[in-house]
């Protein structure tokens, strides 16, 4: 039993390291989209890993921890997608390092609904 | 010294948040900012009340484990402040919503949110 607990603790530690790296990426990256890349997703991974580690430590808590992992895993990508899309339409600029922007090209060619200025 | 205990820290933090909230209510010109100050004031008060009910090294007043069911008074924190705060938070939401809708109505009438442009009741 002791060995399971140690495995769980190590997994939790890895999760918190991933969380920390995600926050570090949040600080270091140059523009919003790259911050989403490293920030929210590395931290989602880190939280899921932390909860997984707790499952190893307390096998009796598996139900709620599993639901929590499911919730975080479904809702967080959706929220970061919605935020990124709406920020793009709102006009948050891309960084200078960006090499290619197919979405802007397609908006120009009228293939995609343009940024709406109805207000 | 008990200065460094979580209940004392929470008391101080709640107290400071309360003061910041009052400062916001009194000095800001924008009505929505004043409502934000009110909601901070609310949060600070709740933290103070909950921190007053905390007892050191005791657990939550939910007796779902058998070891908590005997000699309960020496194992749990005070449930009464928690119950009070529980109702206070919900009322706080109702009051905040009411204030916000009232601010919306005011803006509809006067087309401004700046409190200094409301001169009707000034003497």
């Amino acid at each position, binding site marked *: 039993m002791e060995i399971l607990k140690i495995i769980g603790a190590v997994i939790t530690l890895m999760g918190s390291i991933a969380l920390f790296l995600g926050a570090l990426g949040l600080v270091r990256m140059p523009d919003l989209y790259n911050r989403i890349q490293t920030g929210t997703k590395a931290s989602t991974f880190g939280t899921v890993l932390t909860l997984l580690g707790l499952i190893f430590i307390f096998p009796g808590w598996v139900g709620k921890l599993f639901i929590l992992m499911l919730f975080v895993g479904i809702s967080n990508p959706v929220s970061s997608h919605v935020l990124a899309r709406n920020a793009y339409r709102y006009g948050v600029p891309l960084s200078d390092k960006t090499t290619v922007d197919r979405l802007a090209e397609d908006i120009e060619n009228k293939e995609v609904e343009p940024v709406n200025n109805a207000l | 010294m008990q200065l460094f*205990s*979580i209940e004392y820290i929470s008391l101080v933090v709640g107290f400071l948040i309360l003061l*910041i909230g009052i400062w916001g209510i009194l000095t800001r010109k924008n009505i*929505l900012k004043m409502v934000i100050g009110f909601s*901070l004031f609310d949060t600070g008060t709740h933290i103070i009340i909950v921190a007053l009910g905390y007892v050191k090294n005791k657990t939550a007043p939910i007796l779902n484990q058998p070891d908590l069911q005997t000699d309960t008074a020496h194992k749990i924190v005070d449930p009464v402040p928690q119950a009070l705060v529980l109702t206070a*938070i919900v009322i706080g939401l109702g009051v905040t919503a009411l204030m*916000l809708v009232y601010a919306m109505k005011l803006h509809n009438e006067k087309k401004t*949110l700046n409190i200094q442009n409301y001169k009707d009741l000034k003497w």
Partner: protein
Amino acid sequence: MIYLIIAIVLGIIMLVAAVIAVYNKDLKTAIIAAGVTSLFASVLYVLLAAPDVALTEASIGSGLTTLIFFYVYNKIRRNNAQE
């Protein structure tokens, strides 16, 4: 001991967020900062052994209050745009 560290860090974050909520010029940021304050207040309640209050604060203080604030602000913004 670990409780003490958590409480101190949470207190610092809440105070900073409260100051931002009062002093920032941008109203959107102020509303989000008020949300951050109640969010961490909820973690502090868990630390103070009050899960009931934490649940209420998490669902009402940070969820619904932010929603209502933004609805009202949106309405006001739209009224302004029509002028």
